[in-house]
């Protein structure tokens, strides 16, 4: 075979860098039976308004699992279009926010739990979750600065 051509290998290597991405705060509460849709909507309105003055820089996302959740957008436009109306259901409201401020994250969780006693009727099954997040980004590193090595973290 003749005539093959190529290029020199790149001087740089691609690296994936992981760094602290703050906290993911998630909290959920269920409303079921007559008027569940309206109660879910009121829970969302209550929590988002309260967080707006307690932690104004926190963006809180709300979904209603059973109406719009995984299809929904960040700003909740699709959910707003679907939610009006007094209707029954077995619905789960899910709130989520991301922040480096642990106090703000815990505030969201506490506000959702507070709906048990100071929220729409018949709210139940609150679950709260705080998960540290890793963000990643790619960059290029000069090949000369890299010595390949392997680290084995666990053996079977």
């Amino acid at each position, binding site marked *: 075979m003749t005539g093959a051509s190529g290029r020199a290998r790149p001087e740089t290597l691609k690296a994936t860098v992981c760094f602290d991405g703050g906290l993911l705060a998630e909290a959920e509460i*269920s*409303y*079921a*039976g*007559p*008027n*569940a849709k*309206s*109660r879910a909507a*009121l829970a969302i309105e209550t929590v988002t308004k309260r967080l707006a003055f307690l932690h104004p820089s926190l963006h809180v996302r709300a979904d209603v699992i059973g109406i719009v959740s995984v299809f929904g957008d960040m700003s909740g436009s699709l959910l707003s279009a679907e939610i009006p109306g007094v209707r*029954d259901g077995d619905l*789960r409201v899910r709130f989520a926010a991301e922040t480096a401020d642990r106090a703000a994250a815990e505030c969201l969780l506490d506000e959702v739990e507070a*709906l*048990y*006693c*100071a*929220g*729409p*009727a*018949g*709210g*139940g*099954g609150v*679950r709260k979750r705080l998960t540290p997040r890793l963000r990643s980004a790619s960059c290029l590193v000069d090949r000369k600065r890299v010595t390949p090595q392997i680290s084995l973290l666990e053996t079977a």
Partner: protein
Amino acid sequence: MTCAVSLYELAHARSGDKGNRLNIAVVCREPRFFEPLRERLTEAFVARVFRERRPTAVKRYELPKLHAFNFVLDDVLDGGVNGSLGLDGHGKTLSFLLLSAEIEMPAGLLSLTEEPASELMSGGSR
């Protein structure tokens, strides 16, 4: 002559737990609903609504001055909040399961009623 009415149109309700025991407070939206409900919203009726949870006992307490009832259902919470695999171990959503039930009421009972007042907020003080 009777007709089937959703209990939601006749009453508010709130529920909670003590261990594996559920209590549901049912409060009539209007005082005039109390007597027909006293007749028809029986322990047997409530036991039937919760039959899949197999209550071992259902007891009804009457609070006529408040136009209300308190129902106590034993062994319906799958072990309670520290035992249940369900989301709502406290049974706080179950008030609305009872309110979703249809109950036979004298025909025309609701014809003079106003729109149900808002029950949207739970029992905290204002």
